């Protein structure tokens, strides 16, 4: 589904990413791990069009999406979450998700401006979809709370709901579990699993090793912009290079 | 156009350029560190000009000394402005603009009421002309170019070579990171305001000597300052220098060259064309 070939990104003289090759098949749940600064978020930014690669190609369902702008990438079916500023702070939870329902259906300028019956039908549809997504992610109880006032964990989940609103085929999650307590981690893990069961392919960046190992079937490891390993969790756990890369960092917890 | 006329135009262009750079450099320092568009910068320039006028024409102080005193006074004034009018609205977009308009109104009309409004002239400190390379050049213009050059160079050196200057660069690039590295944003903001306002005062004094001093002279300076920072690069200090030079030379050379109606617009027109292709200016970052 997602084919990355030779993806490279240089910032000035620094190579943030060096010739990454990665393939993700439909229906997989893949993790991208590595120490801080390894280039993981850069990969996300490149896939979703927020950064232009120095060289390399990204193919999605057979289409070259390398040079597309982020909104076009979203139209193609790739959605993502963000680590910081992951929600629309001044909107309520429901407004957040409704604002994110931009693609299916698309509401045109004139029908929206003139409040035509067709646009009102679309809005009803969008409202129902938003409510459904809200329930699905477990935020049903805080429908009218302003996003800013939510605890951190809920905000991250709202970020996931926002991404789901685009009905993606591929979902990129940027550290979905960071800053969460044990209970929130479990809930979010379950949510990710539910999303995956709905048939959405998932690529996630995470530092929480325990959760990553138990969720994913395949893990790719980056270090200093290079992929140093790829394989199922138990293989990665024992990979010498991976252990070395993490040695000296506090992140590694088997 | 004859060679000597061209040379004269170039010199005029350099003089204009020098003034533009002084104003724009000050605005850029203030903008990149306090994130505020100092719309009252023209009025600060005007206050500097009046300081020099009163010291020179009324108190008989030597021009250079007056310039320095004016710098210190106006710089101090800038620090007060930052502390009481800008700091409360840090990180905001609209309110600082309104504050600047209030200051602008206040200063313009205070000057009008206090001085009566008729333009005054600062007696020329350097009368006479000299002959250089077969051209007749007024001492005044020459020395003003040198003074301008001097202050600009001093400022650039300060930014490059001192800790304070480096702190300014750090803040202008990334405020949060700079704060995390222990840089005292409040102190540096005050210094930036001091420097920026002082440079404006120098520009005002020089223009007052070349032309005249009036309560509304600031509008022109603000307009040119904005044009320069937009051309040279928003938030870029070297950009202010390059932009000022380019605009000064265009303004010096084009109008005498083309006597059409629109000659005065060529400078601004060129800038707009550049902006359509590169909105962040020559050296700006988006």
């Amino acid at each position: 589904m997602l084919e990355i070939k030779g993806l490279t990104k240089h910032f000035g003289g620094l190579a943030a990413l060096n010739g990454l090759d990665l393939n993700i098949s439909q229906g997989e749940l893949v993790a991208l791990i590595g120490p801080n600064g390894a280039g993981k978020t850069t990969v996300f930014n490149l896939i979703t069009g927020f950064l232009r690669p120095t060289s390399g190609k990204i193919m999605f369902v057979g289409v070259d999406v390398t040079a597309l702008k982020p909104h076009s990438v979203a139209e193609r079916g790739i959605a993502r979450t963000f680590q910081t500023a992951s929600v629309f702070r001044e909107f309520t939870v429901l407004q957040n998700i409704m604002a994110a329902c931009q693609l299916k259906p698309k509401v045109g300028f004139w029908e929206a401006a003139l409040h035509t019956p067709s646009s009102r039908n679309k809005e009803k549809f969008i409202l129902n979809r938003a409510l459904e997504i809200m329930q699905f992610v477990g935020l049903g109880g805080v429908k009218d709370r302003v996003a800013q006032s939510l605890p951190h964990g809920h905000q991250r989940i709202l970020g996931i709901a926002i991404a789901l609103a685009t009905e993606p085929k591929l979902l990129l999650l940027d550290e979905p579990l960071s800053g969460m307590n044990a209970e929130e981690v479990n809930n979010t893990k379950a949510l990710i699993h539910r999303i995956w069961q709905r048939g959405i392919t998932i690529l996630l960046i995470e530092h929480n090793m325990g959760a990553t190992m138990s969720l994913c079937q395949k893990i790719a490891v980056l270090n200093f912009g290079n992929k140093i390993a790829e394989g199922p969790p138990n293989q990665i756990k024992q990979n010498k290079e991976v252990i070395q890369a993490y040695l000296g960092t506090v992140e590694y917890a088997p | 156009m004859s060679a000597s006329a061209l040379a004269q135009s170039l010199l005029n262009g350099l003089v204009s350029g020098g003034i533009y750079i002084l104003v724009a450099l000050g605005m850029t320092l203030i903008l990149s560190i306090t994130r505020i568009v100092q719309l009252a910068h023209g009025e600060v320039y005007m206050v500097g000009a009046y300081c020099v006028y009163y010291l020179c024409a009324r108190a008989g102080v030597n021009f250079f000394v007056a310039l320095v005193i004016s710098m210190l006074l106006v710089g101090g004034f800038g620090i007060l402005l930052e502390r009481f009018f800008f700091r409360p609205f840090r990180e905001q977009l609209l309110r600082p603009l309104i504050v600047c308009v209030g200051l602008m109104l206040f200063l313009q009309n205070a000057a009008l009421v206090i001085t009566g409004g008729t333009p005054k002239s600062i007696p020329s400190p350097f009368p006479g002309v000299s002959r250089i390379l077969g051209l007749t050049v007024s001492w005044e213009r020459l020395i003003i170019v040198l003074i301008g050059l001097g202050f600009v160079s001093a400022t650039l050196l300060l930014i490059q070579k001192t800790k304070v200057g480096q702190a300014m660069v750090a803040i202008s690039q990334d405020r949060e990171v700079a704060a995390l590295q222990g840089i005292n944003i409040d102190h540096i903001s005050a210094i930036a305001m001091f420097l920026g306002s002082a440079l404006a005062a120098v520009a005002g004094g020089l223009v007052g000597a070349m032309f005249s001093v009036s309560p509304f002279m600031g509008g022109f300076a603000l307009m040119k300052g904005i044009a320069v920072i937009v051309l040279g690069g928003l938030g870029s200090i070297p950009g202010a220098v390059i932009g000022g030079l380019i605009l000064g030379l265009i303004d010096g050379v084009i109008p005498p060259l083309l006597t059409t109606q629109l000659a005065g617009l060529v400078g601004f027109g060129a800038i707009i064309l550049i902006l359509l292709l590169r909105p962040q200016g020559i050296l700006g970052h988006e």
Partner: protein
Amino acid sequence: MSKRIELTKTLGYGALILFLFLIPLITEEPYTLHIFIMIGINIILASSLRLILNSGQLSLAHGGMMAIGAYTSALLVTKLGISSWTALVLSGAASSSLAFFVGFPFVRLKGIYFAIITIFLGQIIILTGEQWESLTGGSVGILNIPRPDPIVIPGLLNMNFGSKMDFYYFILILTLITLLILYGLENSRITLTWRSIQQADFLAESVGVHTAKFKVLAFSIGCFFAGLVGGFYSQYVRVVSPRTFDLSFAIYVMVYMVAGGMGRFSGPILGAFFLTGFIELFRVLKEFQPFVFAGALMLIVFFLPDGLVGLPKRLWKLLNMKLTHA
């Protein structure tokens, strides 16, 4: 919202609008009508500025955009003899076309940088007006602009725009239409999208919003109304000169918006209403008026963060505090 409250609100607005239509019959004093006309102009300007702000951009080119509209109407009517009504619409179109033309490169800039470049845009427009004498009449401008074409409905209506009253109704209808359109947009998905861009533009982009397109859209629509009101202005004052529309003008429009409150639709309306009145009231102070105005600006900025719309809430809080401490 309950049906009864909705009904009361609608009736309230209806009564207000009726009252506005009756004002020229209550007072025929031309100066009072002039103030109301200026209020109408400023309401349109401040509200359209807020529309642009809703998409996360502060435009300080509104003075210049109004100038474009004013000059377009003046030139079309005086030099090409076009009907003043057509000229009015074309005034709006001219400004919004310019906004669209420079829009895509300009909206790549964010926050204060966009504001600065719009300052520059406004300045260029004024400068062009001053320098291109053969077209615009230079600093003096265009004089003796004819009155708007009369509206005659035999037996019912004869507006020849010889009196302030006719202009009052002209701007009243223009303002009501503008507010209707803006209100319709305010409650549509378009404003939801704009506001999502305002809060987190990369997030909006990631859910499929073509943020550049929407920003240019907001800028163009906002500038349309600035141009429209510029056209009206040229037909009302019948003289256009460049300096009227300088940077200070654009900032005053921003002040009306901020003073009234940017968060609510009614904010700019209140701000324009109260501040226009304020300025006129204090005109008698002559050379001290700018000081008073500057002082008022400072008061608003320091003590009214939410603008006038936030005043009831603030007073309520203050009152509550006093009562609980009593």
